[in-house]
Each structure stands twice: as structure tokens, then as C-alpha cells.
């Protein structure tokens, strides 16, 4: 829902329950009794994401342990068969357009919500969040019937629908970034001769830049991954990747889906690792200097 602020990582909280009672030797590092449940939760969290990798390279349709061979057939299908390649291109189109629109619409609202306090702020935020919490099927049938009346189906219908579903993430991430902006910085910039537009470009965008970037990433993923609404709004000539995957999964077990997932996993985890490492280095540097 909200990207964790880097500062959350940097601030090492002290022992919340206080130091151990005196008179006892300091414990050597050993596994705490809580380590086992945490390990189980970690497995629960990551197993479904990781299992797709061996699945995508196993030759048969059924994954076995130990794996009975190695094959890149499913990747070949993914990158050569037109139904998969066109689905990927369609998804890319829709996701990029959604990202641009969601940022253009959501970032100003996020800044307005985060920087100053004004009446009705909570109400607006509540409204903004409803697309996230509303049952997808209800949203889907509603959009299906209303968008059809204005012939907003297929590519543009999907972009419109995905923008609605993605914009809350942009608003929330930009808003939490904007909370770090002191409103007097804006007054200061104005008094130093910057017009409102230049304040936005020279102060707001640089300071909220990280929030806008991660909001854009969330928007992209939301669109890229959206199934339920897309099922209603695609037309036969314009399927997105999740729609294609859903159709395949309902018919039979198709490891091409695992190949898609592995590719995505590779891209997103490397982006995440890069972000973490960069943040880590910067924190370290800041600590040395500060």
C-alpha cells in the first residue's frame, strides 16, 4: 500500500523493552526462540514468488521434485507465439499510458494532501482510497456497463479503468513524500522570487521526486497486474497479459505463465535490490558525514 520510507530502515530502534536485567552475562548471538515462526512466515511470503522459476524451466507441464530436466521451451513460447507477444505489448501500452495519466492526475492531489492541512482533506483521501478497497467485481461490472455506453472498451477503456485503480497509489506515495516538505519552504521560495510554477519545478518536484517515482512504479504494476476489471473491458482484439494468463490458467496448467512470472520477478527484484542498495549506501554516507 505505501512504500516504506527509507528513514524507517535507517533508524535502528532501541530495544523497546529495555535492557536485560543486570547481573546476567550478555547473551551471545544465537537464534532467538522467535526465529522459527519468522522463518515460516518468510517461506510463506516468498515461496509462491520463487517456485515459478524452477517451474518455468522444467520440460513437462507438471513440476516435479527433483526436476526432471531443463528446458527453455516455455520462454520460447512466450517470446514467439503471437498471442503472448501481442498480449505483452498491449499490457505495456496500457501500463505506460496508465502510469503517465495516474501521475499527472494523482501527484498534484498528493502534494496538496501532504503539504498543507485543509478542511476536507480526510474526506478526499477516503474517496481516493475507495477504488482500492471496493470489490473488484463490483467495479468491473459497473465500468463494463457504463463504459460500453460511451464505447470506452478495449485499449482506451482499459487505460481509463486502470488509471482509476492506480491513482490511489500515486496519491498515497506522493502524499507521504510530501509530508517531508515544510510549507515554509514554499513561502521562502516565493519570497525569493519564484513564481508558483517555478516553486513547483525547483522545490516541489525535486523534494517529492522519490515519492512520484515510486508512485509511478506502483501505478505501472497495478495496471500490469490487473485481472478482474480487464476481463470485462478487453475486446477480443485487445487482450492484456493478465487476461491471456487467466484464460490459459482456466483451461489447463500452462508453464508459459511461469515464464512470464519469472521474467517479471527478475525485473522487479533487481529494481528493488538496486533501490535498496542505493538507499543503503546513501544512508551510510549520510551517517558518516552527518
Amino acid at each position: 500500500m505505501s512504500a516504506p520510507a527509507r528513514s524507517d530502515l535507517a533508524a535502528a530502534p532501541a530495544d523497546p523493552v529495555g535492557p536485560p536485567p543486570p547481573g546476567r552475562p550478555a547473551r551471545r548471538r544465537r537464534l532467538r526462540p522467535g526465529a522459527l515462526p519468522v522463518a515460516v512466515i518468510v517461506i510463506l511470503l516468498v515461496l509462491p514468488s520463487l517456485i515459478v522459476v524452477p517451474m518455468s524451466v522444467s520440460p513437462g507441464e507438471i513440476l516435479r521434485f527433483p526436476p526432471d530436466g531443463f528446458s527453455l521451451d516455455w520462454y520460447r513460447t512466450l517470446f514467439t507465439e503471437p498471442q503472448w507477444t501481442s498480449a505483452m505489448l498491449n499490457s505495456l501500452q496500457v501500463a505506460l499510458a496508465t502510469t503517465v495519466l495516474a501521475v499527472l492526475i494523482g501527484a498534484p492531489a498528493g502534494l496538496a494532501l501532504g503539504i498543507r492541512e485543509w478542511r476536507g482533506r480526510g474526506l478526499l483521501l477516503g474517496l481516493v482510497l475507495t477504488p482500492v478497497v471496493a470489490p473488484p467485481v463490483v467495479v468491473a461490472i459497473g465500468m463494463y456497463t457504463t463504459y460500453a455506453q460511451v464505447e470506452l472498451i478495449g485499449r482506451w477503456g482499459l487505460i481509463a479503468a486502470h488509471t482509476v485503480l492506480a491513482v490511489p497509489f500515486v496519491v498515497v506515495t506522493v502524499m507521504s513524500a510530501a509530508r517531508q516538505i515544510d510549507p515554509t519552504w514554499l513561502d521562502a521560495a516565493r519570497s525569493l522570487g519564484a513564481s508558483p510554477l517555478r516553486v513547483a519545478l525547483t522545490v516541489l518536484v525535486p523534494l517529492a521526486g522519490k515519492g512520484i517515482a515510486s508512485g509511478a512504479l506502483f501505478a505501472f504494476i497495478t495496471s500490469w497486474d490487473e485481472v478482474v476489471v480487464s476481463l470485462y473491458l478487453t475486446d477480443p482484439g485487445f487482450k492484456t497479459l493478465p487476461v491471456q494468463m487467466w484464460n490459459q490458467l482456466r483451461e489447463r496448467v500452462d508453464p508459459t505463465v511461469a515464464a512470464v512470472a519469472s521474467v517479471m520477478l527478475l525485473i522487479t527484484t533487481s529494481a528493488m535490490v538496486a533501490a535498496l542498495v542505493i538507499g543503503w549506501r546513501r544512508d551510510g554516507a549520510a551517517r558518516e558525514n552527518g
Partner: protein
Amino acid sequence: MAGVLTTLDPTVPGAAVRRPGHRRGLGGALPAVPLLVVLGLLFVVPVAVVVGRSFTYPDGATLANYRTALTDPVARQFAWNTVRTALVVSVASCLLGYTYAYAMYRAGRTVRVLLLFCALLPFWTSLLVRSYAWTVLLRDRGVLNELLLQLGVIDAPLPLLRTSLAVTLGMTQILLPFVILPVYAAMTRFPPDLALAARSLGASRRRVFWEVFLPATMPGLVAGAVLAFILAVGYYITPVLLGGPGDQPIAVLIENAVQQRGDWGTAGALSTLVVVLVLALLALGWRFLAKGLLGARR
């Protein structure tokens, strides 16, 4: 008592940093106008149309659809499936999520970053793919059964897929991060001095946890629980792919009414009931959700 509770509230020190309230009034909302227009036309109107049809379809139905929705045994069964699953999944997510967030909070820097990474990983993996992965793991000839067979633990494959267990596992995995993040955020807002104060006043470490730390971080847990429950109520993909006939949620019934029978009246009534439930929960939990989003800065 009320005084004690307010001082334990972790957001109190931060909440004192009120933003200067100048430029109040509607001027502040100006940059949000495009957003309001887009949400109004592309989201509120479609949902309102669905709600409207519950009263008008077929002609002059008024409340007939609600009578059907509330008395029909099939609808009741699906409603019960939905609420039961949502409850089980929320409770599981809270227990596991709090444990996990606490481990993150107590861990050293490296472990904390790794744990955070693991908590966020599901966000970046397609929901569809994760549900699919569970089918691979849990089906009769799936990874888990094969493993148990080879180890000789069982003689015949256990029926794991298309059970409530599969749905619970799949949805808990999906909703856990929504609990972990607000709980962890609440924990980082906890002032460590408070624990030291409690120790100095004679509380043992255990009692500090149960009587100071847990209550102080409770708003984060409530926020996560509300979020998990709300999202679970609307879930569609995971129960359809992983659940058996007894696990199908109300979303499936709504979809069937529209897709197979064109019965917009019943679909509208069921949708309205679910939306009202979700909005009511959102309103109830708003105090806690908004605290994380709008609360203390820096």
C-alpha cells in the same frame, strides 16, 4: 485512565507538530480537482449505476432484489463463505503480521532490510502468478504431495487444492504485507523512552510488552486488520483458482448473475450490500487508517 491511554498513544508527540493552518478552505483542494473529476466520472458513476439497478431492474423492482438477496439460501451460503474466509484470513494475517513486524523491529539493520525485502516481494509478483504457484504446490501431484510421498510420510496424495486451506494460505500470503507495513510503521513510532519509563516503574519485560508496547502499536494492527478484511471480502481470483465449491465468494455469485443470467437486479443488490459493508468497515477503521496516512510527519 483516559490520561494514561493518551500518553501511551505513540502518535501524540508527533501529532503536536501541527502544520500551519494557513490557506485553509477550499483553495487547498484545487490541485485535486482533476482527480475528483476523473474519480467521479470513471469510478463513482459506474458503481452508482450498479447500485441504482438494484432498485430499478427489472422494472419497478424497488426492494424485491434485496428480498431475494437476503433470503435466497444460495446467496446466504456465498455470503457466509465470503465472511468466513475474510475473518480467518484477517486473523491469520494479524497474528503472522504482528510477529513478523516485531521481528523486523527488533532485528539488526541487515536482517531488517532482508525481512522488509521479503515482505515487499509479493507486491512485485503478479497476483495471478502467485495463485497459480499455489496450485502447483498444492495439487495432487504437486510439489508438496510429491515431497511427502517420497519422504514416506503419506501413502496417497492429500487433497490440498480446492480446499479452504488452500484459499486461506493463498489469501494470507497476499494480504500479509498489508498488515506488516502499518504495524511496523506503528512500531517505529513507539518512543523507546516509554518502555524504559515502564521498566523504571517496576514492570517486567514481559509486562512492558503486553501492557505498553502492544497497546501503543495497536492502532497499526487495527489499520492492517481492517484493510485485510476489506480486501478479502472483495477477493475473486484466489478463491476461484484455489477454492472448492464451499469457498466460492459472493463476487462469483455477482459475476454469475450478470454473465449467465443478465440479472442486474440481483447482482446490483448483492453488490450494494458488499459495498455498504466495505464502506462501513472503512468508516469504522478510518481513524486508524488515516493515522498512518495523515498522522505525524517526519
